[in-house]
């Protein structure tokens, strides 16, 4: 299971970076979202994967070894919420920018390079 998730995480990082390097605004946002997912999945895998055990910890410390670490899962929850907010903002931003620029092309973002 770890191997599968590692491969998926790597694939997500690669896909995210690839999408960010395209010229299209829309692909860039998709790339950012994929990168966020990749980082979350990485945290999840690092927490350890244990199937079938209920989510409470026995007072016996030896038994705790067969449970996944709950902390990374808490971190992912936080990161997902933050990522959702930021991505929602990003999508609205590119929609407005698309309206102002009239193209889905990053090479058209030139008005920051010259002024007046």
């Amino acid at each position, binding site marked *: 299971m770890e191997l599968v998730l590692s491969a998926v995480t790597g694939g997500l990082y690669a896909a*995210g970076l690839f999408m960010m390097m395209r010229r299209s605004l829309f692909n860039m946002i998709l790339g950012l979202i994929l990168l966020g997912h990749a980082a979350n999945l990485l*945290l999840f895998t*690092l927490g350890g994967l244990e199937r079938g055990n209920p989510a409470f910890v026995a007072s016996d410390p030896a038994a705790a070894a067969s449970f996944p670490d709950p902390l990374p899962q808490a971190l992912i929850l936080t*990161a997902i919420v933050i990522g959702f907010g930021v991505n929602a903002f990003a999508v609205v931003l590119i929609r407005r*920018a698309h309206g102002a620029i009239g193209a889905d092309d990053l090479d058209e973002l030139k008005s920051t390079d010259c002024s007046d």
Partner: protein
Amino acid sequence: MSASPLIWPLLVPLLTAIGLLFLWRRPSWHRWVGLAGAFGLLAAGLFLLRTVMTEGVTTATIGGWPAPYGIVLAADRLSAALVAVAGLLGTAVHLFSISGVDARREAYGYYPALHLMLMGVCGAFVAGDIFNLYVWFEVLLMASFMLLELGGERIQLEAAIKYLALNLLASAVFLSGVGFLYGFAGSLNMADLAGRLAQRGPSPLSNGVAMLFLLAFGTKAALFPFFFWLPASYHAPPAPISAVFAGLLTKVGVYALYRTFTLMFVADVAFTHGWLMILAGLTMVIGLLGAVVQEDLRRVLSFNLVGHIGFMVLGLGLFTPLALAGGIFYTIHDMIDITILFLIAGVVHRETGRWRMESLGGFYDRAPFLSLLFLLAAFSLSGIPPLSGFWGKLALIRAALAREQYLATAAALAATFLTLLSMAQVWEAVFWKDRPAADPEPADALRPTRWEKVFQMTPIVGLTLVSLAMGLFPEPFFRYAEAAARGLLEPSAYILAVLGGTP
């Protein structure tokens, strides 16, 4: 715990922002309620500074869970000084915004976003937990996205896309770094991590994680190969927003580098800090070479900002007590000085409606006092004694010579010279030369009213006085920076305060 002085720098801006949201329908009240909040933040920052100076490292455990399991806030001398300066700059920019931000931006939530950003900045300065640091970074990023695109002009939207894409990329790298660090060392509390990483000693894995953090924080601090978002975005929003971004946001990245690379990643100093020094040298030279060729007043200042980040990181890269003290002193100086310069650029734009240096001129005739203030800030930034930039540069260059890092010394001296050149160009083009003859006299509508002038000049004069005090009486400030540097180099007091006595 409710009385902990660490809570106020977070609570005051948060409550101010919430209060302002309740007053959404009365935007004309925002500026005054917000101003009270900004002064409150300044008071909270000074209170924290006083507490840390008398009692040493201050900590607060949020929710009552003890460290290293609970979330802990901690302020040593570096954090406390930065929080106090953040309060100072927040107040100054808030005062300036009263005349510098138009009514439409005010009505769409400029002041609440400003206060949320200040909260994020202060939170990042006092976070004692690496994941918490990530959360504060996102808080301040989210507020800064809003400030950057508020108004919705095309240049702002384009700038916001560039800023957002590269900063979110850095955040993803940061989060991955946090994940690896947790998987590798098993903790998120920075003081706890310091002990755990020290036990493990140097390894390729810990160096790799350190490089992930260098990439993430280097992007946020605008270090050399990662700085391209900054000159592409900081000149787009109105002047007070540019000023507060320039004064505070990159410095949060610098602070994060200072914290992580003195507390956690010190196992293989030759490798990690060697890279920091190389990047710092390149940042100084390339950033300031960029400044010399720019034609837009704000872009000149943006590249100056990038170049001077190099000085701060150079102090960290050299990693001696004198170098760190110089770097800390320089960071405080630069936060104040670059804000003054951006605010003065804002006044110039307010009165002429122009940013291109070619079409500006004759400002010395028009506003001799403002020109004098610009000259002071520009000389201070270039490091002319006895102004504040000189002492930081002196300490850094002495430390570089003591470590026999002649290339870094040469880079710092070249950067100093290029700053002077770039500032002289601005002086010549904006203040000294005659106004272009073909240019019509700026309309009277652009002339600020008397009250607007008061709100423009008070923050500039106030910050200049602080900068002058740092330059003319550097000793107390430098002693403080030295004590802060000692605290960073021997973090046992910090670790003990955070972990509450458990080793």
